[in-house]
């Protein structure tokens, strides 16, 4: 699947959360998941709520450690490491979240939002100059730096969040449902921007989503998660042409399609 060396290697990873819920004492978020992401790949992790995809993103970011199994980055195990040993990793792997309102600190101006990663990672740069560069690369006016995130629309906030992720010049971008909170036309703008940035900055992309259309547009390969299990993986077009698992087929069938005549439907339902 990969052209160059392996970026992420996820080996037999499970993650169990202990809860105080009256229904269950432990929730298995991920169960024995194995896959790898190669350099230059654009890999989609597809699944719905409860599939474990957000847990997986935290494991890939070494913000949490798996209950069992290992997550490696360029051959080095990253889970459970001391932050000091992860400094280089932190610079190279960045994330964009779904909701750009809650992922941007409401008390910081855009300048600080974009400068923070540089300060935290002790990257030597002319802050003002770098912030201008970043804003320009996401097609935002440089005057945005003086304003707060809440003064922008959803699409513009997501551009700011993307600019922040690009700040440390990462080689991997993890995007956790970055367009699912956006309107169709803004979604198209952000997807176009992501496509350009991935190309221009030679990024390896890990794209987490439940939207098969967006995934097909952006990713070369797909991993399908269902209730914590990796049920299917493969190249995007192969998987679209001949999905093996029922759940993958359902995901594909469920996506709404534009049609001029209302169709009589009846896709086999399933307990929501």
């Amino acid at each position, binding site marked *: 699947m990969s052209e160059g060396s392996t970026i992420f290697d996820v080996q037999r990873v499970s993650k169990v959360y202990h809860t105080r819920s009256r229904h269950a004492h432990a929730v298995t978020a991920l169960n024995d998941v194995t896959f790898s992401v190669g350099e230059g790949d654009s890999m989609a992790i597809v699944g719905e709520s409860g599939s474990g995809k957000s847990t997986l993103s935290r494991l890939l970011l070494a913000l949490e450690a798996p209950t069992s199994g290992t997550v490696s980055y360029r051959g080095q195990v990253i889970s459970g490491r001391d932050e000091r040993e992860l400094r280089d990793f932190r610079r190279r792997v960045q994330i964009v979240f779904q909701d750009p309102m809650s992922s941007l600190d409401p008390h910081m101006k855009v300048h600080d939002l974009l400068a923070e990663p540089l300060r935290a990672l002790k990257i030597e740069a002319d802050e003002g100059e770098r912030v201008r560069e970043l804003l320009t690369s996401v097609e935002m006016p440089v005057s945005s730096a003086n304003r707060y995130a809440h003064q922008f629309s959803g699409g513009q906030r997501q551009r700011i969040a993307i600019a922040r992720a690009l700040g440390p010049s990462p080689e991997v971008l993890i995007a956790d449902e970055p367009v699912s909170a956006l309107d169709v036309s803004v979604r198209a703008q952000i997807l176009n921007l992501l496509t350009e940035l991935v190309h221009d900055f030679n990024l390896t992309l890990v794209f987490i989503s439940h939207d098969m259309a967006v995934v097909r547009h952006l990713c070369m390969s797909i991993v399908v998660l269902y209730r914590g299990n990796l049920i299917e993986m493969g190249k995007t077009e192969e998987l679209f042409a001949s999905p093996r698992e029922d759940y993958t087929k359902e995901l594909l069938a469920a996506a709404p399609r534009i049609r001029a005549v209302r169709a009589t439907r009846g896709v086999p339902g399933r307990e*929501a």
Partner: protein
Amino acid sequence: MPLLRVRDLSVTSGSLTLVNGVNLEVNAGERVGLIGESGSGKSLTALAIAGLLGEGLRASGEVSLDGEDLVAATERRRCEVRGSRIAMVFQEPMSALNPTRRIGDQVGETLRIHQGLSRRSAEKAAVDLLRRVEFADPERYVRMYPHELSGGQRQRVMIASAISCDPEVILADEPTTALDVTVQRRVLDLLDRLVDESGCALLLIAHDLAVVSEVCDRVVTMYGGRVVESGSVAQIIDDPHHPYTKALLATSKALSVAETSLGTSLPSIPGTVPNAGQFPRGCPFRDRCDRRVEACVEVPPTLVRDTRTLACWNPVVDDEPVLEEAP
């Protein structure tokens, strides 16, 4: 006479006009989709129809249900209509449900208010309603609290509560936007079936043209607080006349599962939807439009032909004659 008739509906906040002269008709048994981006005024239109505008917002014009004007009616009368004859389903079922009360209690509440049912019979009715919205084990679910349900289940609970008094009109504001794809499919199918069974009218507000095209008979496009185009789904999908509808359609098509492919550039509308009050004078879409002409500085009149309406000075037409002016 249409069941729900909206004539020249405007919503203002101080000196700002947020919804401007909206005309809309929905017949019994008909499914009408209202599309447009965030900030186009479609949600406000729905809230104005339901008489649920927040503080500082004022509706004017006419919203008549079966001939009775609701804008002019007293708040007391609107309360009687709301819930019993017009029901609403919102985007966020979690915030629309009270977290401290059991499901059965909340589903039965509308019946207790509007039909004076006792607590006990309301709860029995709730069980039947949950069964109608496809809960396999409704007796168990009426005892649960909202947080114990999944997003899709909560939205079905909202729908159950909406249909409890057999409303004549269901207003659904982005009911599936917050849901996963497979769950969205299920909720859409459910809404569709319920409209079939009860013969009520559905006004479905969505930004996703694909969702609207699958469920609805007619489409109404809004931009900048105005209706810019309306017509049957087939007319709008096959042959959109307004540049905004056409651009939305092109984007939605390029982003649908069947059409998209890796790495291509997606068509999108340049710029962003302006703030309320910052739309250009005349046609609200003109500064983002690639077909603007000099006439666009004036508000285009709404032209009507058969089942279509259009408000554009330079419409997208192949060789068809332009629509006639409204009488």
